[in-house]
């Protein structure tokens, strides 16, 4: 910075008046005794500029710290754990097994919006098929680092909009199922139905999951018939579970990953009764005794379609 020079015109106790080389009459503070007629040089860096620069740097630092602060986690059942900041941006991505670790390295997830990332991860890492969707294993679990119920509910609702169609779509992708649709007469020729299981269980135990229609029929949401079918679906990709169940699920994820590629379908892992059509052509889910027990111990959640609950707890590990 160019130093300004000038002449001292008037001197007082702790200040003086100078005329600088720009022709400006200025009032300055004097740190040392000066006298009229002395040559004066301006300090190289004004204090206010240093102060402004310091404030800007601190503000940027605080913004960076805040951006990288994780306020919630979204854990996909395939083993991908996604940390989210207050602006719903992904800041951390962790993998719990080797397969998901390899997947995480191939995709760019950080910095993107959580709903896009969850949609991509669920789409890429969760395969369709009856054996993949287990009622005691949710596709996605949302936890918050602080007790912030509103933020958790908001995240759950936001992610549910993305995950639910994917789950439904994947559940219909399984071919070779012997299920019959409610409106089997409307099925296009040669088209088979995918599995109709949701990937979550209802926390209240009301696990009556009915037939999932074919994707084309499911998309007819404009008419009442389509709406009725969606309402009957009652798919909740997300659920609220306790910490113990979270740990159990996490341990299970590490051992038995849902990560692609799909392997040999193990029909023995299916729920005992499977889906059997009732007299009305609707399908209901009959759970095994073990599954029913687990459901009874689950905390109650809101069963309204389209609403989800996430898990809010003080996750000390995060």
């Amino acid at each position, binding site marked *: 910075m160019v130093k300004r020079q000038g002449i001292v015109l008037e001197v007082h106790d702790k200040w003086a008046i100078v005329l600088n080389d720009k022709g400006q*009459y200025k009032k300055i503070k004097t740190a040392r005794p000066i*006298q009229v007629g002395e040559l004066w040089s301006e300090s190289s860096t004004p204090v206010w500029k240093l102060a402004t620069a310091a404030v800007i740097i601190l503000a940027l630092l605080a913004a960076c710290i805040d951006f990288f602060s994780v306020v919630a986690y979204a854990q996909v059942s395939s083993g991908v754990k996604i940390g989210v900041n207050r602006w719903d941006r992904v800041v951390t991505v962790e993998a719990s097994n080797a397969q998901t670790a390899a997947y995480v390295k191939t995709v760019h997830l950080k910095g993107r919006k959580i709903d896009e990332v969850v949609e991509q991860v669920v789409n890429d890492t969760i395969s369709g098929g009856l054996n993949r969707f287990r009622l005691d294993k949710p596709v996605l679990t949302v936890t918050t680092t602080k007790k912030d119920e509103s933020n958790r509910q908001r995240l759950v609702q936001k992610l549910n909009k993305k995950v639910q169609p994917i789950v439904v779509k994947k559940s219909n992708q399984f071919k070779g199922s012997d299920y019959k649709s409610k409106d089997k007469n409307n099925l296009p020729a040669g088209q088979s139905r995918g599995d109709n299981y949701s990937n979550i269980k209802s926390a209240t135990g009301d696990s009556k999951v009915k037939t999932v229609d074919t994707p084309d029929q499911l998309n007819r949401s404009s008419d009442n018939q389509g709406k009725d079918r969606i309402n009957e679906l009652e798919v909740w990709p997300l659920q609220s579970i306790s910490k113990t169940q979270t740990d159990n699920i996490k341990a299970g994820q590490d051992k038995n990953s849902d990560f692609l590629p799909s392997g040999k379908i193990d029909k023995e892992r299916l729920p005992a009764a499977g889906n059997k059509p009732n007299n009305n052509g609707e399908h209901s889910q009959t759970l095994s005794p073990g599954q029913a027990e687990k459901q009874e111990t689950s905390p109650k959640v809101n069963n309204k379609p389209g609403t989800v609950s996430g898990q809010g707890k003080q996750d000390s590990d995060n």
Partner: protein
Amino acid sequence: MPYPRQALEKRIHEAAQSYQNGSEHAIEDVYNDLLPFCLRVASKICNRYIDERDEEASIANLSILESFEKYNPERGNFLSYLGRVTRNRIIDYKRREKKQIIPFSDLINAQNINTLVDDTFFDDILEELGRQKEIDSLRRLLNDYSISFIDLVKISPGQNNARERARQVIQIISSNLQLSRQVLEQKTLPAKELREKYDISTKFLDRYRKYIIAGVIIMTHDFSCLVPYVLPSGGKENG
């Protein structure tokens, strides 16, 4: 108007010869010119403002007498000799003071005492005294127009463009005898002529009236140390 060093040197030579010849009143002719110089030297050494009521002022008085008694024209000019004598006496006084009280400021400013000085040190002081005289003259002239340095601080143009334009107006007026005469005698700016010939708005002249008048006074009275500060950036006067 630079510090009249040559004229002062001549008077001092004459006074010194008279004093050494026995005329004790010879010093009175130049005393009022020499005392500010000695006080300024003492102020530089002590790094604080010294006036006539301080102890150092009495030491400066004694230094003047001593210089007149011992000065030899063959050793150089009188003012440099007077400056060295004053500085040495002040240093001796400070060292005697240190035995009793050691102010922290003295320890910080010890370099002023311990470092050797050459003639440029005293030349700088003389230049400062010359500038001080010009500034005192300017203050008296501005008082006739009811203008103070505080007023100039308040109305000084903050923007570079406005300040540059005001400096151009100062140069226009000071280079035109008729316009400068109107400013100095009538104490008003020739707004009509400036608007018609140079397209300078009346509003601009009203806003920076005091600033322009002060600049015209500096230019017309040839305050050499201040003229470079009021000229536009593009042109500088010679001399």
